[in-house]
């Protein structure tokens, strides 16, 4: 059992505040993804959990034990590094067995565990090679096997797939998810790639400027972003925003000439809608098409609505040309509302 609890963790580098008062609980065997742009503090948080960095404030608990004063090796964790950190002077076998050797396990046990994890990662035929003779994908597999061979309670991954090419990344994504689910470990996975986050995570913590903005299931993060930042970060392309002003009756809002039903609030809000939640209709936002991108599966149209950039994903057969004026209607129940002052969602 390894529940991870992060309590009031803050980190300062000199004057720079990298993390502000982070509180997060990760359940046993949960796959948690820390998602954010570079510099948001996600790697720093991972390194604090790992023990490679010390928090300026706060506590880290793993499996009911406070660990923030312990060295990495006593925390029951293992890690997959971004550049793999597969030792070049050791064979694949000795790389995978590195941690086990440090624990002074007997040779036969090391051999058994190395062979088992190598089999799991399909690299059993590479055990005698050096890392210089491996491809990036194979090195990645060695790094994961080395982490799994430790049979840790928690496995930490710092952008492990970011150095692979797109096709390989997709393949490894699915494989990694499968292997980790079978290993019954709690996993924390840092990435800036939202597709990776969406496809692998049980829960995503979206981070921004050293804070966790939202920690929820992928579909909730996607459907009900807790803050404007999340709405503008998740989704490719992300949500469209339009200013909304009260239109007389409670819950009635005027958005770009349309009257929409929304929450009760006494001040101006922002209306947000995903590009794929827009349809061509008789009544709706008047949008002038500026760029039309046929992407095969669908058509991405970048338009302008009352001076605001507005994107729509339409059926690939739709006939749209630059300069056309489209009438786009938001699908019922798909619009979201944000308070411009606090940037938080309003419902």
């Amino acid at each position: 059992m390894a529940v991870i609890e992060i309590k009031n963790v803050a980190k300062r580098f000199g004057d720079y505040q990298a993390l502000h008062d982070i509180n997060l609980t990760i359940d046993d065997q949960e796959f948690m993804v820390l998602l954010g742009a570079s510099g948001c503090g996600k790697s720093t948080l991972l390194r604090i959990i790992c023990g490679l960095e010390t928090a300026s404030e706060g506590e880290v608990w793993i499996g009911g034990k406070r660990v923030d004063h312990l060295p990495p090796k006593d925390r029951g964790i293992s890690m997959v590094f971004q550049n793999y950190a597969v030792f070049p002077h050791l064979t694949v076998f000795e790389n995978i067995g590195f941690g086990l050797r440090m624990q002074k396990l007997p040779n036969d046990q090391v051999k058994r565990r190395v062979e088992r994890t190598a089999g799991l990662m399909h690299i059993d035929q590479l055990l005698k090679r050096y890392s210089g003779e491996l491809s990036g994908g194979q090195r990645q597999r060695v790094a994961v096997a080395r982490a799994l061979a430790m049979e840790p309670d928690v496995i930490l991954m710092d952008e492990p797939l970011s150095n692979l090419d797109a096709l390989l990344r997709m393949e490894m994504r699915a494989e990694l998810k499968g292997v980790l689910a079978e290993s019954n470990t709690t996993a924390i996975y840092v990435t800036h790639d939202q597709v990776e986050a969406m496809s692998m995570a049980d829960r995503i913590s979206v981070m921004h400027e050293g804070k966790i903005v939202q920690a929820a299931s992928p579909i909730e993060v996607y459907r009900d972003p807790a803050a404007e930042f999340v709405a503008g970060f998740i989704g490719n392309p992300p949500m469209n925003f339009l200013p909304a002003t009260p239109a007389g009756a409670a819950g009635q809002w005027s958005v770009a000439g349309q009257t929409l039903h929304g929450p009760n609030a006494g001040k101006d809000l922002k209306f947000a809608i995903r590009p794929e939640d827009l349809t061509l209709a008789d009544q709706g936002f008047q949008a002038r098409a500026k760029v039309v991108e046929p992407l095969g599966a669908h058509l991405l149209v970048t338009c302008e609505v009352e001076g605001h950039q507005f994107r729509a994903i339409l059926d690939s057969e739709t006939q749209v040309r630059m300069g056309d004026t489209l009438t786009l209607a938001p699908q019922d129940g798909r619009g979201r509302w944000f308070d411009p002052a606090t940037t938080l969602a309003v419902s």
Partner: protein
Amino acid sequence: MNPRLLPYVLILPVTLFLCLFFLYPFVLVAQQAFSDGSGFTLDNFRDVTSHWKFPISLKNTFLLALAVVPIQLALSLLMATMVNRMKRGRDLILYIWTIPLGISDLAAGIIWLAIFEQSGFLNSMMGGLGLIDSPTNFLSYQSPMMVFVAIMLAEVWRATAIMLVILVAGIGLIPKEYYEAGEVFGATAWQRFLKITLPMLRPSLQTALVLRVILAFEVFAVVQALGGTLFPVLMGETYEYQFTLLNAGAAAAIALIILGISIAFTLIIMRALRVPKGATI
């Protein structure tokens, strides 16, 4: 210009220069060593190796190398590791530690002579502290061990920095992630040094050791200043044959013997510290 030829054309001047000023004299020296004026002979080698001072100077040269190089290796590794951990003042410390590199070996020998000689710093200090009544002559034929230690100290002081700069550069090239991986997977600081730093430093260790060992077999001025005739070494014998005994053939023969020893040790070091194929960063 044919682009395939260009690199060769560009290295031609250096190659010509080295051929003219290194290879040609080398051939001349070899010729001198293997001839007696009329034809091929091994007489010069027979003469120098059968001389009573040869085994002593050979033994002294090896002993000195054996005593000095391991100490310098350990010291330079320690110093390089320390410097590498420093966040501030790293360059300043490096400059200070490499000062001895800036002076000639004869000057280094004289500095240590000023410490150890009868009217030297060490004697006046011990006298001042009341440890001794009258100054003693440390560097006399009666205390060969003291002469050896003085030469050793001077050599360590003078030439550790050359290994240090090579190792500092080498350690700086090892990516931090390897140490973090070592830490996460349970290696102690000492184990990280043994299992990560040392093996990954092999190319730099090779260079540093080859350079240092060759220099150790060529040791001359420091020994001359501190030991004089009390501590004969191979290079000193070369000098002796060439300039005192005016026997250029014998001097050339000893020079070739030193070269042979240097090449042998270079090959041994290269082999011992070779990096297996595919095992580079």
